[in-house]
C-alpha cells in the first residue's frame, strides 16, 4: 500500500501537542524581521496536527491562535484567524489522504492549501479596504512548506518510539 515502511505509531499525547503548538507560537512571536521569506511556524504545526490528529486539534484552536497572531502583528483582527481556520479545515479535509504519501507528496499537498488559504484571506482583506499586498507574500508559504520534513521528524518522534519500555534505554 504505502511506498515505504511504516512504524506502528504510539498514540499522541495532548500535552505534547499543546507543547509543540506553544513552541510554534513562541517561534512566530520572535522578532525575525520583516523579510517575506520567514516561515509561519504556527501555521505549519497547526496543519501538521490537523492532518495527523484532527480529533485532538480543531478549527477553534486555529481561530484563537490566529487572533493572538493578529494582535502581535497588528493586522486587522480576524485576518490571521480566518487564515488559520481555513488552514485547519483544509488539513482536516485531506487528513485521510495525505499520510499515504511520502514526504515529497505530502509537501505537494500542503503547498496549494497554504497558497489557496492565503489567497482567500487577501481577497477578503482587499474587499474590506486594504491595498494589494506585495507578491512575495506567497514566498513565506514556500519556506513554510520546506519545513514540513523537519516537522514530520520532530513532531512525530515521540510516537515513533518502541512500544516496550526498556530500562536501559532513556527515551
Amino acid at each position, binding site marked *: 500500500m504505502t511506498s515505504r515502511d511504516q512504524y506502528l505509531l504510539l498514540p499522541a499525547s495532548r500535552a505534547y501537542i499543546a507543547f509543540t503548538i506553544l513552541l510554534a507560537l513562541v517561534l512566530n512571536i520572535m522578532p525575525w524581521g520583516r523579510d517575506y521569506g520567514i516561515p509561519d511556524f504556527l501555521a505549519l504545526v497547526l496543519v501538521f496536527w490537523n492532518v495527523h490528529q*484532527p480529533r485532538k486539534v480543531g478549527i477553534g484552536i486555529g481561530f484563537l491562535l490566529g487572533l493572538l497572531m493578529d*494582535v502581535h502583528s497588528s*493586522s486587522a*483582527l480576524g485576518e490571521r484567524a*480566518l487564515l488559520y481556520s481555513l488552514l485547519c479545515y483544509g488539513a482536516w479535509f485531506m487528513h485521510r489522504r495525505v499520510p499515504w504519501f511520502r514526504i515529497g507528496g505530502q509537501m505537494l499537498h500542503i503547498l496549494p492549501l497554504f497558497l489557496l488559504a492565503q489567497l482567500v484571506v487577501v481577497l477578503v482583506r482587499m474587499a*474590506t479596504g486594504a*491595498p494589494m499586498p506585495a507578491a512575495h507574500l506567497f514566498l513565506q508559504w514556500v519556506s513554510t512548506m520546506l519545513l514540513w520534513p523537519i516537522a514530520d521528524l520532530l513532531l512525530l518522534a515521540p510516537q515513533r518510539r518502541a512500544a516496550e519500555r526498556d530500562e536501559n534505554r532513556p527515551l
Partner: protein
Amino acid sequence: MDRSPPPFFRQGPSANARLLFFGLLSIALLIADARFDALGGMRQGIGNVLYPVQRVLLVPRDAIALGGTYATEITSLRQENAELKRIEALNAKALLQIEQLANENKRLRDLAGARERAAARSVLTEVLYETRDPFTRKLVLDKGAQQQVTIGQPVIDAKGLVGQVTRVFQFSSEMTLVTDRNMTVPVVLQRTGMRSVAFGGAAPGRLELRYLASSADLREGDLLTTSGLDALYPPGLPVGRIERIERGGDNDFVKVLVAPTAEIQNNHLLVILQVDTSAIPPAPPAETIDPARKRSRRSSL
C-alpha cells in the same frame, strides 16, 4: 429504512459547520476592526497580556546584537567616536543659537499678536520590532499609555519625520511609518513656500505628492518640511526630498516621488513628540447633499 445508523463516535458539530461558524466570525471581526475600528478594547486586552511574552522573546535577539558589537575592533570604535564628536561640534553653534532665536521669535510673535506656540514635551523610545502584516508598515515602540503617549503623536528621528503613533497599549505603542498607504502629511516646499500634501504608499519606502498641476515649480532635491497646518505636526520638521518628477502624459497632473529624509529602514531610537492631541480642532462636518435641491435641479432640466 432511510435512516443511517447513529455515529460511532461523538464528533460534535461537523467540520463544515465549524468552518462556517469561525469563518463568518473572522469576517465579522475583520469588518468591525478594519472598517469601523470598533474592537480596540479587545485588542488592548490581548496586547497587554502578550506584552511580557514579547519582551521576553526580544532578549535573545538583543543579546545576539550586543554580542556582535562586542566583537568590534577598537579602531572602528575610535573612528565612530571621533565622527560623533565632530558632528557635535558642528551642531554646537546651532544649538547655542537656538535659545536666542526662540526668544526673538517669541518677541516677534507677541508683536504680531500671534498665538503663543506651546513647547512640546518629547520622550525617547526604542523600536522593539517591525510588524509583519503585509498590508501596513508599522513599528512597535516601548513607550505606552504609562508614559503619556496618545494616538496621533508624531515620531521623529535625528533626520526627519518617521511617522505617527496609531495605537497605544499600556506599556507599548504602535506607530505607522510615513510611507504607509494610509498616511498623509501636510508639507510645504522649503524653496518656494508651496503647500501640498504628501501621501505614503506610492512605491515601497517612498511618498508622493498628489494633485499638483504640471506647471508647479518643482525641482529634484527640493526639501519638504511639515507645514504645521493641521495643528498636529509641529512646523519645520523635515519630511523628505523630491526624488523624481514625472511630467507629461495626457493628464495635467505631475507625479512626484519623495524620498523620506528620516532613516525609515534602520531605526532603533526614536523620539515621540508629545503634542497635545486634544487641541486639534474637530473635523468640519461632511457635506450632505440636500435631496430637495437635487430633485428641483433635475426637474428644471
